């Protein structure tokens, strides 16, 4: 029997973007406030899981045609690359670097290589969570 998911699907279309925005906010808040790559990644995958519940695996795969195992690997590459990058500047592993910039409108801003490391964490968390959910969901 085919059920009518109209309310769920319509609500999802709005909610997914709010959740994704919140996850991005959480991700960037990490340095000064609670948040960071891990919770941001979990929330982003939460948004995708909501899509999975409202639609089905095939639709979501069409919307997000990623191989999530490779997303995980890319994330690892980001994190490992930022930590190993310090070696090229004759600094110990995992040494980070930051600077202040003054872009128009936004005011004083710090750019920090730790963000790149956290991007890696974000991608790994999204990749791992989605791989787990998709694999379990697809297995008969």
């Amino acid at each position, binding site marked *: 029997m085919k059920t009518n998911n109209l309310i769920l699907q319509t609500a999802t279309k709005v909610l997914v973007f709010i959740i994704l925005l919140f996850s991005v906010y959480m991700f960037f808040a990490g340095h000064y406030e609670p948040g960071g790559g891990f919770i941001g990644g979990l929330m982003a995958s939460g948004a995708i899981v909501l899509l999975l519940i409202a639609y089905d695996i095939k639709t979501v795969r069409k919307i997000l045609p990623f191989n999530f195992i490779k997303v*995980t*690997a890319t994330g*690892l590459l980001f994190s490992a690359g930022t930590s*190993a990058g310090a070696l090229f500047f004759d600094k*110990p*592993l*995992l040494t*980070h670097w930051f600077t202040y910039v003054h872009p128009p409108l936004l005011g004083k801003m710090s750019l920090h290589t730790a963000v790149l490391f956290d991007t890696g964490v974000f991608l790994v968390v999204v990749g791992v969570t989605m791989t787990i959910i998709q694999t379990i969901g697809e297995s008969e």
Partner: protein
Amino acid sequence: MNSLITLPLLIPFFTAIILIFFAKNIPVQRWIATIGSVLTIIAAISLATTVYTNGIQTMNLSNWEAPFGITLVSDMLSALLVVTTSLIAFVCLLYSFKSIGKEREKYYYYPVFFFLILGVNGAFTTGDIFNMFVFFEVMLMASYVLLVLGGMKIQLRETIKYLLVNVISSALFVIAVGYLYSIVGTLNMAHISVRLHELGQSGIVTVIAVLFLIVFGIKGAIFPLYFWLPGSYYAPPAPVMALFGALLTKVGVYSITRTYTLFFTQDVGYTHELLEILSIITIVIGVIGAIAYSDVKKIIIYNIIVAVGVILFGVATLTTEALTGSIFYLIHDMIIKAALFLLIGIMIKIAGSSNLKDMGGLIHRYPGLAWTYFIAALTLGGIPPLSGFMGKVLIVRSGFEAGNYWGAGIVLLSSLFVLFSVMKIFINGFWGEAREYSQKEKQPVKWLLTAPVILTICAVLYGLGTEAIYPIISTAAETLSNPEIYIKAVLKE
């Protein structure tokens, strides 16, 4: 800034990451894996030579001074173990190419393989107790996957046991680190050592020492915590079994050695005597198992337990000579256990069964295999010119010097039984009339045989070159028996 210390960690890590991208392309995977493995060996060897000429190498990660950040410390012991690990990894990799099978290769065998090497090398190199826990987990996660990969019934069953035991022991590890942290307020291993020695002898430190012994004893399979090992190591295919047998328990042994020489040296009368008694019972249990079975895998698996007991008996004696013997024996045992597992892997492939009753007369058609096995077996038993000899001599001699006649006697006697157990395989498996096996024509074992032959040659050279290697090993033992050297190198006082 000397970044050499990070390379044995970074190279396997990056190799593993890159391998994930090429998961379905087997030839590319093999090439990348080989290159990564060779680079790891080169990095490890140059690290070891640097440590030998310039003393202990340290790196404060993120540029934080020693007790506040994570420190990577490579003293002679850990550098030697990293070299041995890289060598064994390379050899097991060569063996995997022809034996692991396309299906496993397609499902991320090589990436996981390199994550295991990363975990093991990291656990040997770290100077931070919680970081050691993290590397333990990296290693264990990879080992869960390697154990279950393939999805045969026996693998599934044994993985559940293995997983359960290791999750519990990891939880205990966290609890033990928590207790230790609440007493000394630091996680850096050198700093913990300083604080514990300021604290002097107190009851709670002894309790934590025993807790650490339980944690690492589960990982390293000492009596009475060895119960999971015979089943779990029976399940995976030969190259994985060789990796596990050579590396995983030895990380537990290394951790016991590190903590019992660096941290817990105040109440030696209690903690080290306990370790001594347990190690002797471990030897007895291992020997009983090795003699009892007529299954080649089980025999070698119980020989791991014997070796763990012998090494820890040397550690418990806690003299420089005994520690030298332990390190000698530890490295010898890693190499030769890997070789033996790979050799019996070939035997099982030929005979189609791991039971000795189904084998016989292999020497007629596979003389190379037979003689390699013979040399490896003699090496394991500790026949003088070969590598098992020197370590055991030092352990036994310092045992007698310390007045522990029973313990040293049992170590000495265990050699005989170990030799008996491996010779039983040789006599029943290789001698006798040539038999017909399920595969009629001669199996192509040339490629498979290169891997254990490399290891056996290393073991033989290790034994013949004892004179040359002795100063290196005694440097390692010097650091273990004088924690001040380690502490000075890390905290730079």
